[in-house]
């Protein structure tokens, strides 16, 4: 399968690889996927004042498209409020990375990881978790 230039770029030079202190109340962590399915994404956000995301990091076990989707997600998250970040849709990722149909699940996983990280932060800070209106499972 041929990958798009953007997937190759994110795969070769992944942005924001790393780990934030998950014990910190400013950090939200989303861990989604399963090893037996061939993809696991861990996406973390650090949230500052006004609920603005100041930092984002990821680590992903998966194919090139999964790595690229999570790398892109971290780029998009920085500078957004957690409410705006909640609006990131997997199809935006599909479009940006020109993912083929067989790789759409990678973008779904990235969206799930974003929402899981935000909800982790919200719950830690006394807010309610936001149920996603669409279920991919």
């Amino acid at each position: 399968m041929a990958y798009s230039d953007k997937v190759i770029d994110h795969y070769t030079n992944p942005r924001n690889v790393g780990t934030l202190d998950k014990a910190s109340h400013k950090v939200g962590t989303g861990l989604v996927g399963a090893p037996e399915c061939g993809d696991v994404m861990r996406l973390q956000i650090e949230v500052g004042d006004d609920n603005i995301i100041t930092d984002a990091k990821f680590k992903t076990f998966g194919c090139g498209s999964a790595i690229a989707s999570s790398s892109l997600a971290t780029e998009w998250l920085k500078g957004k409020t957690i409410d705006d970040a909640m609006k990131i849709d997997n199809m935006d990722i599909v479009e940006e990375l020109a993912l083929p149909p067989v790789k759409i699940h990678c973008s779904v996983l990235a969206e799930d990881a974003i929402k899981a990280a935000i909800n982790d932060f919200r719950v830690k800070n006394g807010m309610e978790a936001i149920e996603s209106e669409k279920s991919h499972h």
Partner: protein
Amino acid sequence: MNIPIYLDNNATTPMDPRVLEAMLPYFTTKFGNAASRNHPFGWVAEEGVDYAREQVAKLIGASEKEIIFTSGATESDNLAIKGVFEMYKEKGNHIITTVTEHKAVLDACKHVEKLGGKVTYLPVKEDGLVDLAVLEAAMTNETILVSVMYGNNEIGVIQPIKEISAIAHKYGALFMTDAVQAVGKIPVDVNADGIDLLALSAHKIYGPKGVGALYVRRKGPRVKVTAQMDGGGHERGMRSGTLNVPGIVGLGKACELCGQEMESEAKRLSALRDKLQAALTVLEESYVNGNVEHRLPHVANISFKYVEGEGLMMAMKDLAVSSGSACTSASLEPSYVLKSLGLSDDLAHSSIRFGLGRFTTEEEVDYAVEVTKTAVNHLRDLSPLWEMFKEGIDLDSIEWAEH
């Protein structure tokens, strides 16, 4: 050294220039139909086919009359399994095969089940080999055919063919083998091995694509298969269709070359393969899949835990290899062969198959080792599972969300 490096010789092999040279006249000046009996054009083509039949037969210790040319091993497998079932179904309706067979065998068996046949799919042991006691226990007096592949395409394990055929014969069943990966790579002898039907393919042994053969025993016992293709009654009535003369000539030449060079090639390739395997299993948490003693000389299937195969291949873009990861397939299921060894899904997803060949050099193997090591380390730096493993977290203790 030319980049990218081809290490996927179990999928297909490049054609040997000597094979191409043998084929070329049969496209142009020697273009006749081998079935044209009344002019020199036909005779010349037929001569080419007859010679190829001898070359193929010689490589597997058969008689030339026992070779049926086909379009490839998939057709040979289909003809053998469906053809035996149709021919012998009055005698019994039971076929035994294994779960690690090629899809051509498995799907032909599924077809037989639709026709009312019963098929037993034997499990394999953790090393990929058939358990002879389990095979014997599955035999019934209804069993007409046992079909077990000679060497496995994914992990390279070589089944105990003599012992398996002896069990089949003890119960009056025929023994068939898909020997696509073994023929031309290791010695195969239909008489010493007790083989009644054998499928082989040209493009796995440095010949052209689109041609293969089925060996059908003529003596002790005389085996018959019902034709699956109706037409002019070519190939002793078992496979109609104008013969692919250039392809057949190429298959013959490919067999001849393998016969001459197999012994030294097997030594050279197993030394290179062992070098590659030793260098890569130095990496932490890397595992060789399948039995390493009974294995084809050119294959190594290695799982690099905590990295995903397709992602890994992408980082190894200068190498052409394949993976048991199914990320590219619509089903998202990892290799059924690796799973049948009892490998967990994540290890199956993490596997890379290295398939060396006649044109693989030591320089290429050394380069492949470096590329693979760099890629594995790069992806482990990106892998949350690797980080957890390093922190001593038991991954099985985590409740993963299936998706």
